[in-house]
């Protein structure tokens, strides 16, 4: 009979056990502390200080947060960025994930030819640098030399064209859709992998029961991959509220036009590092970063309490 691990550890001398724990857990804890916990704590600490023009810092408690949420000069751009960020997230949830699910469903159809080709092609944009994607779409959609206007005209829809990236009303949604285009491969791959896990006999049983491929997808496959879909939603949430690079590379730190594409990431960037006439303010920037952290934490808690507990995983 092999001894159980807990028995073995119980019989060990304490010093040896401590050494063992240190050996196995030490490196991970050290790296995690150095690169995750320490910056987080330091940022939170910094957010409770303020600095005068000479550079000297003094402790001010929660005053920075009061300024951020109470002073119109700060709170207006903050709420604007938060609202935009919610729209950014909503577009991903409503477009990226359903499209990802649909693509995964199509990829898992029996008898599909060129499966590997489609999979690779649809995953390709995810592997491109955000800067390249942003730059390419900027060119494509440009009213001056972009191909979008010409392409629409060629199919008789020329009147639909507008300089989407330049209009306050459409810039944010356009950027969101560019991001969706780039990252739709990730939900597709995760859900496709989950679909592959469903045993063939289950699908055969559904066919004998008279379901077509469409109904099999909605009544059998989809309910069985719900855990993966919810995981994808959480990943989307975290990624969207930490997003920065696409907006920055297409629109710059000012997130124009007139801050229409400003999200928390770009707002934080301007606050912390400064931009053009605005001076960098690390302590206020830390306050913004801390608020972002708590927004994401709150979202995750809501998810864990209301969604995760209700979702059931199925073993086949």
């Amino acid at each position: 009979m092999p001894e159980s691990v807990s028995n073995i550890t119980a019989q060990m001398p304490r010093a040896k056990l401590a050494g063992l724990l240190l050996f196995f857990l030490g490196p991970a804890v050290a790296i995690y502390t150095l690169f995750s916990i320490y910056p987080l704590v330091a940022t939170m600490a910094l957010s409770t200080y303020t600095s005068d023009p000479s550079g000297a810092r003094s402790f001010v408690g929660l005053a920075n947060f009061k300024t951020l949420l109470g002073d119109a000069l700060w709170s207006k751009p903050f709420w604007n960025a938060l609202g935009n960020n919610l729209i950014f997230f909503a577009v991903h949830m409503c477009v990226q994930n359903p499209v990802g699910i649909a693509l995964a469903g199509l990829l898992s159809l029996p008898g599909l030819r060129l499966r590997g080709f489609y999979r690779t092609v649809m995953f390709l944009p995810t592997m491109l640098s955000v800067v390249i994607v942003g730059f390419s779409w900027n060119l494509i959609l440009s009213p001056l030399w972009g191909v979008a206007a010409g392409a629409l005209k060629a199919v008789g829809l020329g009147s639909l064209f507008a300089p989407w990236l330049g209009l306050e009303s459409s810039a944010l949604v356009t950027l969101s859709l560019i991001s969706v285009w780039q990252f739709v491969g990730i939900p597709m791959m995760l859900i496709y992998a989950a679909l592959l896990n469903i045993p063939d006999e289950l699908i055969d049983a559904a066919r004998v029961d008279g379901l077509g491929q469409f109904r099999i997808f909605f009544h059998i496959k989809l309910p069985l991959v719900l855990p993966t879909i919810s995981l994808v939603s959480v990943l989307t949430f975290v990624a969207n509220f930490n997003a920065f690079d696409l907006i920055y590379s297409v629109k710059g730190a000012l997130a124009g036009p007139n801050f229409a594409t400003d999200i928390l990431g770009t707002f934080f960037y301007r606050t912390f590092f400064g931009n053009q006439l605005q001076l960098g303010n690390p302590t206020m920037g830390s306050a913004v970063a801390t608020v972002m952290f708590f927004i994401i934490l709150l979202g995750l808690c809501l998810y864990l309490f209301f969604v995760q507990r209700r979702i059931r995983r199925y073993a086949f």
Partner: protein
Amino acid sequence: MANLRIEHLHKRYGATAVLNDVNLKIEDGEFVVLVGPSGCGKSTLLRMIAGLDGASGGDIHIADKLVNTLAPADRGIAMVFQSYALYPHMNVRKNMTFGLKFTGVPPAERERRVTEAARMLRLDELLGRYPRDLSGGQRQRVAIGRAIVREPAVFLFDEPLSNLDAALRVSTRVEIANLHRMLKSTIVYVTHDQVEAMTLADRIVVMNKGCIEQVGRPLDLYYAPANLFVAGFIGSPAMNFFEAKVAGVEGACARVDGPGFRSFDLPATSLKMGDTLTVGVRPEHLARREDGSFTVEGVVELVERLGESSFAYVRRADDRLFVAEVRGRQTPTPGERVALAAANRDVHVFDSSGLRVSSPTNT
């Protein structure tokens, strides 16, 4: 309830032929068991009957209707899978009614069928449970229940008992037999288990490498296997085979001789001097006896005692082993020299192409 007719059925995956010209006629209400070694195409044949796989050639008729192009749900079949394939996200009741919803069975009728099937399979208590909360045997019964509520013309079972433990397998086997008696429906049943095949089947279909070797009633296959393959496949432990030659032909009688056994006469007109033959005798038909034309001798090497009988592994003069099942308390001891004989009708002779010739007559 319906008959089932399979004509010249072929199945190829690319260049590999999986089924080769399969012809089979199954009567209304018949219980037919498909057996054969792993990979011989049993599941493939069953799935083609179900319509889950398309044919590369040939016709399938169910209830005298050509069903080649019909979807599985329209063929009037129900299938029970080896892994049960219950929908994990639906409770037992929903698992059973789910398919009916899509075939337009009204709710009241669905309810009636589920109640009836649940009563028949003792599932009443379990209707609200999910598959994960059921034991293997219960899951199997739900899978069968899901097939029953479809009220199919033909039931298809693919190794339904292979995931159950030995005791449960026996009791579920009995239940399936009872079910067949009650429903009187046509059943095609795939199994690896000889006992299942022998006990359940009205007729057994023995398959090998995508072809049907023999179709017959269980005891016919046992007592009169048509060829070497069937002879070796049916029965456990397997039949003993002895190499032999035609040593002489006198009128309608051929003298069969070979190393390790006494020569005997065979009524066979088609045999020629020098033809190679194979003589087969089942272990359970060898006994210490004086009569019987077929007698082998050897030294007992090993004895396996099972209680009601023992298996003796005997080494012949030509250094080959054969097995004899010895009944009763008089078990041989290792090292003992024995002479074992079989009755004429239990001696099977096969020609060089593996086909059965006949059994010897009394001399």
